[in-house]
């Protein structure tokens, strides 16, 4: 009886770890890539106005900026489980440094929050305010991509 229990426990542990090894984290990866896509779409709206390619629209600019802020409020750690880096899985450019230097990664996400809040404050005040605010958002993107994202391809 005792032997059977031990065996069962062993099987459970084994089964558990097998399930872990199979986890592909595709949900988390889709979610985090999706949030960056939402950022890109809204930055595109603001960028079009900054470049003068689309007419300035204060209300639309404000909506876009609000969306950036909304994304920046997403609590990140659940989207970045251990083992979902580009060395472990295909389909992601997330470098292991995200986990090795977690504080740095999270502080860079926080810096994005600061930058998009700046955009939120000025987006509706006029076309000329968009460019400089966008520059700061771009700086936050770059700072993190410089260190924590692998090149594409």
């Amino acid at each position: 009886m005792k032997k059977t229990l031990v065996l069962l426990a062993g099987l459970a542990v084994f089964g558990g770890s097998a399930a872990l090894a199979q986890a592909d984290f595709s949900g988390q990866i889709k979610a985090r890539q999706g949030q960056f896509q939402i950022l890109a779409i809204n930055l595109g709206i603001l960028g079009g106005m900054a470049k003068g390619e689309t007419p300035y629209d204060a209300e639309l600019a404000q909506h876009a900026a609000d969306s950036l802020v909304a994304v920046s409020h997403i609590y990140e750690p659940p989207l970045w489980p251990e083992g979902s880096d580009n060395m472990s899985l295909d389909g992601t450019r997330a470098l292991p440094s995200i986990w090795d230097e977690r504080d740095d990664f999270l502080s860079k996400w926080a810096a994005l929050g600061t930058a998009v809040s700046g955009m939120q404050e000025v987006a509706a005040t006029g076309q000329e305010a968009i460019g400089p605010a966008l520059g700061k958002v771009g700086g936050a993107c770059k700072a993190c991509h410089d260190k924590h994202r692998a090149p594409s391809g």
Partner: protein
Amino acid sequence: MRKTLILGALAALMAAGGVLFVTRAQPVDSAVFSGLTGDAAQGEVVFTAAGCASCHHAPDATGEAKLVLAGGQRFTSDFGVFLAPNISPDARAGIGSWSLTDFAGAVSKGVTPEGQHLYPAFPYTAYTHMAPQEVADLWDYLQSLPPSDTPSLPHEVGFPFNIRQSLGVWKMLFMTDQWVAPDTEDETLTRGRYLVEALAHCGECHTPRNVLGGLQRDAWLSGAANPNGTGRIPALTPDKLSWSETDIAYYLETGFTPDFDSVGGHMVAVVENFAKLPASDRAAVAAYLKALPQPAEN
């Protein structure tokens, strides 16, 4: 018989001497530089466009500290790891004791004041196209930067690449003062060529290399393997890079791609530099890229 042997030995010695002579480190003509006076303000523009700080600032330096050119960043390649040296004006650890001619020899010929060949991880094959006046301006500006007494570290390069004399052969094979793009009357394209091919040394990463590490100039800017591992450095030729000139210039200013992804990797440093240059320079690079010929079919 004995005579023949001696003659043969002599011939062999002369041949070896000839090789040593041909592959010797050849510095610049000092007459070209002795009459020049540098302008530090102009030199700062050259410094920014050439991206000197991006490789020579200390690892993880940020903000103003990037102007302390203490060296120490590591550059991985198929031939070993190269460590950027201290090029701050410190007389002992840096290059403060150099003359303008010494500096010009290093920048445009890849030769140290002691007559040693430098490794082409330092992009002198691009800087060799720099105008002598701009070399003088850059030298003046570099001397105005803060000194650092951090010693330069040796490269981690194994045999046979640690034989610097062989670089003389390498230079004969792969270093040229010819431009890739043809001469043109168009001032924007000419400026773009100067920025892309000389100062910003774009070809160093965006052009594929042969097995000896020489740039494949017939595949100019057609994309290459990433020397630091994963991914590829993208092609910039018009068949691959579909961005408009405005898109390219905007990317170099802000780091945003046309679909508002953002720049990453070492290109972040490049964009940081280009953002400080006049808008006309970013436009010139964009014009140059769009005027590139389609690469030959492989």
